[in-house]
């Protein structure tokens, strides 16, 4: 299986995602430069975290105009698997692949810490190795991760199992205290209607090895392996 990890100017998690794909789950991995149009026959595209184009306009606001993004949009429309992590999620939202917006955290500050997530849907290509309702630990690291969508969209997401991860307590309760950034309904990750594009603020690649404090995030990568083989 082949992972393609996008590099925009300002990306800074592309090497981490590459390492996990290649060295932890032992798959083929390539980098995709933002100025290119060739997706190099990858099976999964990862849009990694960072500060694409410095995030000076709006997080992810410029990246969507890059040549590689139009190819990724085509790829996604044909059913190709795409994950956007952190800034990557912001890019996918800005490109229209996922609905809603990511606003500044409610405390207006950058937050880097482990959070607990409840897996709301394990029937996606990205989460099939999780149990439904499983509580997992992964870190967040962002200043703009406060997910917002108009009530009708949120309703549509909720009713169709498109909320994939939700911030929860260690015991799986969905409380305001467990919500680090103010996201509507504690939403941490969502999927598109077709189920092939995932966006999430937490970083699964940072929790893929026990030496770093846990390996819950690894399942996001391993779930995919079964998908395309």
């Amino acid at each position: 299986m082949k992972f393609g990890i996008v590099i925009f100017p300002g990306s800074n998690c592309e090497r981490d995602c590459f390492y996990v794909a290649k060295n932890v789950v032992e798959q083929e991995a390539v980098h995709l430069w933002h100025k290119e149009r060739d997706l190099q026959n990858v099976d999964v595209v990862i849009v990694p975290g960072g500060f694409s184009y410095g995030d000076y306009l709006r997080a992810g606001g410029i990246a969507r105009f890059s040549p590689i993004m139009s190819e990724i949009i085509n790829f996604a429309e044909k059913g190709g698997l795409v994950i956007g992590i952190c800034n990557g999620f912001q890019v996918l939202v800005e490109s229209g692949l996922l609905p809603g917006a990511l606003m500044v955290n409610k405390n207006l500050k950058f937050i880097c810490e482990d959070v607990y997530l409840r897996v709301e849907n394990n029937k996606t290509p990205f989460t099939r190795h999780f149990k439904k309702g499983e509580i997992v630990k992964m870190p967040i690291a962002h200043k703009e991760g406060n997910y917002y969508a108009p009530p009708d969209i949120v309703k549509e997401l909720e009713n169709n199992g498109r909320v994939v991860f939700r911030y929860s307590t260690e015991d799986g309760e969905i409380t305001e205290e467990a919500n680090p950034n103010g996201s509507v309904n504690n939403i941490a990750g969502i999927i598109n209607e077709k189920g092939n594009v995932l966006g999430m603020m937490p970083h699964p690649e940072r929790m893929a090895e026990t030496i770093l404090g846990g390996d819950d995030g690894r399942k996001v990568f391993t779930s995919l392996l079964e998908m395309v083989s």
Partner: protein
Amino acid sequence: MKKKPEVSVELAKKLGLKEDEYERIFKILGRKPGYTELGIFAGLWSEHCSYKSSKKFLKRFPTKGPQVIQGPGENAGVVDIGDGLAVVFKMESHNHPSYIEPYQGAATGVGGILRDVFTMGARPIANMDSLHFGEIGFPRMKYLVEGVVEGIGDYGNCVGVPTVAGETYFEKGYNYNILVNAFTLGIANKDKIFYGRAVGPGNKVFYVGSRTGRDGIHGATMASEEFSEDTEEKKPTVQVGDPFMEKLLLEACLKVMDKNLIVGIQDMGAAGLTSSSFEMAGRAGTGMILNLDKVPTREEGMTSYEIMLSESQERMLLVVKKGHEEEVKKIFQKWDLQAVEIGEIIEEPVMVGYFHGEKVFELPVHPLTEEAPVYDRPRKVPDYIKEVHSFDENSLPLPDDLTETIEELLVRPNIASKRWIYRQYDHMVQINTVIRPGGDAALLRIKGTNKFLGLVVESNGRYTYLDPLEGSKWIMAEAAINLATIGTRPLAITDCLNFGNPEKPEIMWQFEQSVEGLSLACEILKTPVVSGNVSFYNETNGKPILPTPAVGMVGLAEGIKKIPSNFFTSGDNLIYLVGDSPLSLAGSEYLKMKKGSIIGKLPSINLEYIANLVELLLSLWWEGNIESAHDVSEGGVAVALLEMSMGSRGKIGFNIKLPGGNERIDRILFSETPGRVLIEVKEKNRENFEKAVREKNIPIYYLGKTTNEKGIIDAQLIINTVELFKKWDNFLEESLRQ
């Protein structure tokens, strides 16, 4: 165009030069300097760039060792870690700019130190910071804290270098001069280290990165003066950072170095193009011809003076290997950056600059760099020393309620959790962080190897105020023990020496004593100094900061059997106090809380013993006989025990009995003298553990056991650790909000 100011002794003084230094310029040149030339002298001869007051003393530092590849004098130090790898690191101060404009001051401090490291060919993998603020309630202090933390965070987070450890102090002595010291460490291939040397006459000099603006002109001079009431007016001397540009520059520079296309490279830091060009030529014994018309500028009508002295950020000077100019340009273009040829290396050690068809400077290189003025300034023991040393600890009444005292200590700003700060720093990007901020030191793995790095920054202005020599030994001892509590062997250090006005004999005495203390410790702990920086003139209206040498120490472990911890891991384990140190309340948080002042005489510590303790801790982790270890430092044994239970949010407590005898209970509980460590051991490892300690001839006291949600000392002091955790954890955020 503006008319150039007339060169005169008054103008020279305005630029920070002394009268005799101005005369010296005439002697060197045999003529009157031009305006741009005078600016160049002022920049290079500023305290910040020339180290003219400190140079004589810095020679005392031990800088050699089998592990040292490059010691002080380059952009950063380089240390061999085996298997063809090297670590490159340095710490630098950005105190003055951060006080004037906290966000940009701190951000550009991080930017500058990152460049110092990646110019050596190393990819930065970790940042740390040492911060000293005034009292939280002091006017403007919350604004400074918020700004500095956000500035450090935003810059490091964007570039994608994790901030993995640090220290933060709040103390009256920094009310008017805060300290912001930033540390960066990078990893490089041992045989691919690049230096700031302008070698090879005929090679072209390239300018890369941001355009040159009018920001930060004379920042170096500003950082070489005391503050007075007009500090606000100095805002324009503070630079503005662009971490996105830095990230692009980092990737492009690492690429040209990886492909071996350049022979020399240096960041345009303090004194901008002036220092980078002169220093590079100075180290190589060459000269340069610079065409200032080619320098990309941000605004119209900039003068040669401004171009040479601007401290605009994110700019580098490269010397390209002949014939590879186009390749270099292409790599920078890939990252949407400009690489512009602005000059050429010449054999003769002379720096020549042309602008608008006119020769604007022609200066010999060596007299400005290597032969810059050096002072042997007078030293004198300050009057306060006798007074603070005369305090008699026995005059202090014993506390009525020890439980209350301990609980109070835990929420002192210096002891309370710093989570509010490090939560704003991405400390995990690059996925190497094994032990995160909040412990004694950070532990990083190096991918593809079995190596681990330990990182710590250490300072304590109170100790070094009471006794700069002994205090410096204390902070070195603490740093080494901190690294050993996470199983890494101290390798080398970098330092930031923060002091007041060196023209005052009392300050120079503090400086000399500190250098001596650090040196003694470096020798015995076998941790040479490989890089560093001196920051003088941390004074406002004649009042200096506490003398504050800060040390960044790096440790190494090859293979790890068990991931070390500084926190209790489970209930029903044994707790030991290992080691001995002369008990004293001097400079302690407890004494400060009780008396409101920094007083006492630090007892002398035995550094050979500290080195032995370090070896013991390393062998204990290596054998896997222990579960956690934490050194006794600020707040004493009482605070150290509670800190060990904070890792479990207070859920794992302790029930212990202290060794005592006839000693005062507060000295037992709150002495901060380095050399004691708390260790958690499983019953099944008891014998092996005790044997290992005894073999090293180190004293050992069995204290008791870990237990649930309570801290019990001598059956009488009972602390609810879960409740205390919440207070300790929230303290900083709440006090900043008030």
